């Protein structure tokens, strides 16, 4: 199972770092409460940002003659450190204007110290710091690959915040929360990486003190510190710390450590003795510390705690998603070369494999040799008779990563024996290019000389078991292998059986001819034209499906009488008032569309049945063009009165007929060729094309339309298929 590079790196990075990452996230949450509790202390004075050194320093020196240093922390608490006699703890928080003691710095909380050491170095000193730094860097790569994945998933940066299709809890919240906490997590990772690099000396943060030339130090003019120009213009808020002169000697000076530079000041004259700007790395280190620890801002600290909590959730949900995917992996019992059934899967995240696996299990249980693999492993399959393609679509109608080479492989490996194929597309109507790639694969296969379609292409919206069941029924009917009872996707078991009464039957004129029949619709029965009627002629698992046309209060069927046909023979043998057990299979994609400008219906043979019902229900008089083909006019006569009546009532705009064994021997595709321009315009105008009948007819019509559309609009017919403008129900 291949997955895209980004997803693979995202997973590989997560796997290699999750242990340390969980530890760092957990300790990070705890540490975030440090700044929050600190900030709550009442040691910051109100007008702090206005206080200058000229105001503060003389006041503090008068109050504390022994003061040796002063520092301002990130919370803007001012701390004075002195050598006052007898004081046990010589540091106090002070009001910088009055010198009033506001509080005593507490001992650093031992628990926080312990957690900090764990967070920083795992108690392993240098080695631990290295691993934590590496983890931060990996986290950075994880966020980058995660961002790329979201962009891919949402198909473009612009749609980054558009809604996400919910597959399951872990997947949904992994993406939703991922988008929101992306920025804080990226900041945590980036600053963490930077701090580690700085710690290992990658940046020049060396502390260089200004050089003081003692030969030029002046002892005059004597000024009061309150008059010093540098003190007047420097605010306390720019200060990190101040070292007071060690003695009254003129050679001892003030050292002001400001946010961006260090200045030494003559204690007598107030002259600036030296000044050194810090390297930029010091600024970035401080910024990184602010951002990484949330110091000085309880709001940011809380955001960091939430982001750390999210990291823990991502580790959990990421693994939940991964294990789910691994569970979808396949181990084949038989080789590709010996298998009769080949199931090819195109899947981006592996979920389609579950459906492939369900089918595979059924086939194996039935004693068949079957083989599941991804589309990129397409090769020569010497014993294959049936090919089933189940594929999702990725991005803007592209192939999933494990199906990208299919087109080339099809060219390279033509099969030597005829194989029938069936394509099942997986997707979601939440995206505009619904199942586009599946339509593309269907088109590719239809061009292969060795390939014949076993069923019409089917699509599954949002992993719907109903849609899958619909395909399974069609496929098992054609292949003769019962696969209705799909593990975990069981439909037939809880399907509701209906009892239907025959009201009318018009027998076939000859063997191979067409007959029509009608059943009464009870008041409780919900059925619409386009749905399917499933009957069980031998009362066993064998099921036969017929397209339903609802006219008035009746279900109408058109059936071709096959010699020895199980289903057709059974129906033909019924008499009026007889009851049968059957069930209605909802087939929503083939219901008559409301609110569209125009509808074109194409049918051959008995495929006209659902259209008859739809035309009769066309009360809004949407313009409907009907193209229908038959072998003989005789069959058309069965419907002629009804159709002409509907045309007179305005429910049908035009009838185009083709007869393949009489007159000028036309097929319905000839009519399509004739009206190609009209049909291309139909698509442009948002109209809908419905096709019902044989797969051979569908193939001809689709090829014609593909060529016409390409010529007219530059878009293949699969473009309109993926926009649900082409709806088919063929067999």
């Amino acid at each position, binding site marked *: 199972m291949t997955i895209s590079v980004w997803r693979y790196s995202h997973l590989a990075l997560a796997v290699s770092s999750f242990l340390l990452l969980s530890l760092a996230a957990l300790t990070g949450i705890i540490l975030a409460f440090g700044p929050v509790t600190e900030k709550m202390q009442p040691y910051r004075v109100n007008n702090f940002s206005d206080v200058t050194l000229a105001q503060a320093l003389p006041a503090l020196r008068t109050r504390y003659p*022994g003061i*040796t*240093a002063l520092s301002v922390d990130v919370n803007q608490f001012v701390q004075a*450190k002195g*050598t006052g*006699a007898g004081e*046990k703890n*010589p540091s106090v928080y002070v009001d910088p204007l009055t010198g009033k003691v506001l509080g005593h710095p507490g*001992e*650093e909380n031992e628990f926080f*110290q312990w957690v900090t050491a764990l967070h920083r170095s795992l108690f392993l*000193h*240098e080695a631990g710091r290295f691993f934590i730094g590496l983890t931060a860097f990996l986290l950075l790569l994880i966020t980058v690959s995660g961002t790329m994945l979201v962009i891919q998933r949402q198909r473009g940066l612009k749609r980054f915040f558009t809604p996400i299709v919910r597959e399951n809890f872990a997947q949904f919240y992994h993406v939703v929360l991922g988008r929101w906490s992306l920025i804080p997590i990226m900041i945590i990772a980036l600053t963490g990486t930077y701090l580690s690099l700085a710690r290992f*000396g990658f940046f020049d*943060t*060396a*502390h*260089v*003190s200004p050089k003081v030339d003692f030969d030029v130090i002046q002892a005059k003019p004597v000024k009061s510190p309150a008059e010093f120009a540098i003190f007047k213009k420097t605010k306390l808020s720019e200060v990190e710390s101040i*070292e007071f002169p*060690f*003695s009254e000697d003129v050679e001892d000076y003030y050292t002001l450590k400001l946010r961006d530079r260090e200045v030494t000041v003559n204690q007598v004259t107030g002259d600036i003795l030296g000044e050194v700007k810090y390297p930029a790395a010091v600024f970035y280190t401080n910024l990184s510390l602010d951002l990484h620890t949330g110091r000085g801002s309880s709001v940011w600290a809380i955001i960091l705690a939430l982001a750390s909590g999210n990291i823990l959730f991502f580790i959990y949900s990421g693994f939940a998603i991964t294990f789910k995917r691994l569970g979808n992996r396949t181990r084949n019992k038989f080789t590709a070369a010996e298998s009769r059934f080949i199931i090819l899967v195109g899947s981006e995240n592996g979920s389609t494999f579950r459906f492939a696996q369900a089918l595979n299990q059924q086939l194996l249980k039935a004693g068949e040799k079957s083989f599941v693999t991804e589309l990129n492993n397409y090769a020569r399959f010497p014993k294959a008779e049936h090919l089933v393609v189940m594929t999702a679509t990725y991005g803007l109608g592209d192939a999933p990563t494990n199906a990208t080479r299919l087109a080339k492989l099809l060219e390279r490996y033509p099969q030597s024996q005829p194989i029938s194929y069936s394509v099942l597309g997986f997707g979601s109507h939440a995206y505009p290019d619904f199942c586009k790639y599946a339509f593309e694969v269907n088109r590719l296969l239809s061009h292969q000389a060795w390939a014949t379609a076993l069923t019409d292409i089917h699509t599954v919206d949002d992993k719907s078991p109903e849609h899958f069941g619909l395909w399974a029924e069609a496929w098992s009917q054609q292949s003769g292998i019962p696969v209705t009872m799909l593990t975990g996707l069981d439909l037939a078991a809880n399907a509701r059986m209906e009892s239907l009464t025959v009201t009318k039957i018009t027998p076939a004129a000859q063997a191979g001819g067409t007959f029509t029949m009608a059943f009464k619709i009870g008041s409780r029965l919900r059925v619409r034209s386009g749905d399917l009627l499933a009957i069980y002629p031998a009362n066993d698992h064998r099921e036969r499906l017929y397209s339903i046309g609802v006219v008035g209060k009746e279900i109408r069927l058109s059936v071709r009488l096959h010699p020895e046909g199980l289903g057709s023979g059974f129906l033909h043998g019924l008499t009026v008032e007889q009851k049968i057990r059957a069930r209605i299979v909802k087939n929503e994609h083939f219901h008559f569309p409301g609110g569209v400008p125009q509808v074109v219906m194409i049918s051959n043979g008995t495929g006209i049945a659902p259209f008859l019902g739809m035309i009769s229900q066309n009360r809004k008089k949407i313009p409907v063009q009907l193209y229908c083909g038959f072998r003989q006019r005789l069959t058309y006569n069965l419907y002629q009165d009804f159709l002409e009546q509907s045309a007179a009532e305005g429910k049908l705009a035009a009838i185009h007929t083709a007869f393949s064994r009489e007159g000028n021997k036309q097929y319905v595709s000839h009519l399509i060729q004739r009206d190609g321009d009209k049909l291309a315009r139909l698509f442009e105008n948002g109209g809908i094309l419905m096709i019902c009948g044989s797969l051979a007819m569908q193939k001809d019509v689709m090829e014609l339309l593909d060529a016409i559309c390409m010529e007219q609009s530059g878009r293949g017919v699969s473009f309109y298929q993926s926009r649900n403008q082409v709806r088919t129900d063929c067999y």
Partner: protein
Amino acid sequence: MMLSKFYSAGLLALALLFAAPAVSRAQTAKYKCMVQMTSYMGEEAYVVISLINPKGGYEKTLYVLGSDKKWYNTLKDWFAFYKQKRTDISAITGASVAGGDRSVNVIELENSKINAGYKIRFEAAVEDKKYNVKDIEIPLTTESLSAKTEGAGGYIRYVRFSPN
């Protein structure tokens, strides 16, 4: 007169009574001690200031720069001495010092130890870096207590004393 003699004797006794501790206190003096660090790269340094007797052994701990006891064992030689006696050092403990910073503290010295062959030792350790037993060692003399002593390539650039 008797009375005044009594008075005198009483006063003397009183004086003696109160003078005894006063005399012993008078034997110590306080000094401001400034430790200026070099601009080394790395964590904050733990520095211990000890009084070393003429035989070269530890006599007394004068000051400890660094408050987390977890790291004390990195100052190996001093820790061996400290472990034995376990005196309360909370009153003479301050914060560790970063590269380029300085730390000013007050230490108390007995006058009798000055100019008597004693030394003051500054030993320093930095996490994951070298441990220096004698980052600086200064003879305890009247001279050195009023001057600046340059370091010898360790973590400390210089130390300075001045009477407090």
